[in-house]
């Protein structure tokens, strides 16, 4: 096993890096989606609240693998079928495996990120918003300057957790041929017939990566906590 690991570690590591890159991109997308949909869910306008709720209900319900197929196989093919040049220009690029995976994982994780950010905004005492309004801030300004900076600190640990969930989910991208960690393991297994070793090594790579990420997030969390209670 040690010999096996030594032989393929480099290949696996490349796969892990690709998976991490995909995760960073998907997390960035999910964060932006989550921020806007959470604000919509807490909006004073009823139709925005409804639209935000619909987003979460829909994309929390679709399994990520189904979403991946829809985005990678479904959308570009549909655009080509319709033949509308605008649709082809818009959806054609989803032919690209990495782009399709990034979009699918962003949209999926966006639903969870929405709920994390919404909950963290609601966890903040209501008097923060009221005090901000009492000095003449509009709802938007109060959100931006007073509520969100505090809420996002609350949201940090669950967002880190979501990052880890996305990373493990990137293994699904192997089915559309993205050469991330799982795909590397499949190729090694196919070439060596050492299925058990190939997948145990992949599992170990995931475990180590997750432990490193968790440690990193705890360290940052401590820093954030220190910043809010003491001087710089």
């Amino acid at each position: 096993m040690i010999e096996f690991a030594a032989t393929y570690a480099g290949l696996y590591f490349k796969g892990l890096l690709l998976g991490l890159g995909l995760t960073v991109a998907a997390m960035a997308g999910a964060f932006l989606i989550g921020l806007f949909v959470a604000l919509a869910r807490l909006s004073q306008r009823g139709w925005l609240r409804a639209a935000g709720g619909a987003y979460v209900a829909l994309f929390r319900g679709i399994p990520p693998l189904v979403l991946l197929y829809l985005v990678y196989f479904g959308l570009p093919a549909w655009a080509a079928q319709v033949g509308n040049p605008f649709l082809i220009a818009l959806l054609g690029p989803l032919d690209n495996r990495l782009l399709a995976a990034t979009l699918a994982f962003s949209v999926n994780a966006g639903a969870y990120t929405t709920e994390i950010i919404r909950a963290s905004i609601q966890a903040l005492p209501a008097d923060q918003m009221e005090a901000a309004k009492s000095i003449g801030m509009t709802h938007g300004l109060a959100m931006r300057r007073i509520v969100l900076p505090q809420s996002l600190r609350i949201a940090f640990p669950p967002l880190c957790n979501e990052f880890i969930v996305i990373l493990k989910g990137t293994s699904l991208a192997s089915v559309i041929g993205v050469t991330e960690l799982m795909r590397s393991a499949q190729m090694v297994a196919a070439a060596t017939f050492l299925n058990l070793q190939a997948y145990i090594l992949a599992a170990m790579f995931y475990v180590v990566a997750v432990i490193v990420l968790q440690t990193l997030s705890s360290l940052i969390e401590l820093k954030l906590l220190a910043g809010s209670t003491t001087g710089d």
Partner: protein
Amino acid sequence: MVANDVRYTEVLRIEALGKSFKGTPVLSNVNLTVHRGETVAIIGPSGSGKTTLLRSVNFLAPYDSGKILLNGKLMGYVERGGRLQPDTDANISRLRRSTGMVFQRFALFQHRTVLQNLIEGPVHVLGLSRELACERARTALKTVGLSDKIDQYPARLSGGQQQRVGIARALCMEPDILLFDEPTSALDPELVGEVLSVMRQLRGQNRTMLIVTHEIGFAADVADRVVFMEAGAIIDDRPAREFFGKPNNARIEAFLARHRNERSSSI
């Protein structure tokens, strides 16, 4: 407008104000006027609608009927074709600048230092330069006696100190009227005095203040007028001397007696 015009000195005018929470009325036909430089105390039993009335003034609690006029301008609604329609968030926020609020539980911005709490509004709402805002902040901190805490985070301050920062934050916006919602009721008894003494000082500067309080002695001391609320209505509104000299209602008399006893027993 002529300087001695009555309306000119009316900072706040509340007319026939009404509000219900889910069908239960909490304010009914409330009328109240506060003139420039006046200190008005609102007292009354718990649940009588004092907080709701105060929060209607800056529209943190929207009212359903009647009118609130700040410097003659209608708060929260616009009149269109004889009908009142909800005003925009931008307009409501702008009119709110003429009010400053001091909260029962301080409500300081926890992620900001004292100085940052104080310049937040002046810089980001009023558009003042940083230097000017900091100057205002230092003046306000001197008023409340906390110049040495300028770079502290709120969590590091005692309740009394936090409340004084809360007052300073309101002062920095230079509002036309200060609204206090039981500013000392969340404080340990030994910290009440420092906050009341700051408020006394503001009274000495002829600020316009509307103060909800359970500190009867303090109200008797600083208020020009006392308003007594009961079950969502104002049942007495008289100059302080008269109000305390000869209560005109047995229930008010009982309330005052009870609270005077509480005070003497707690000190």
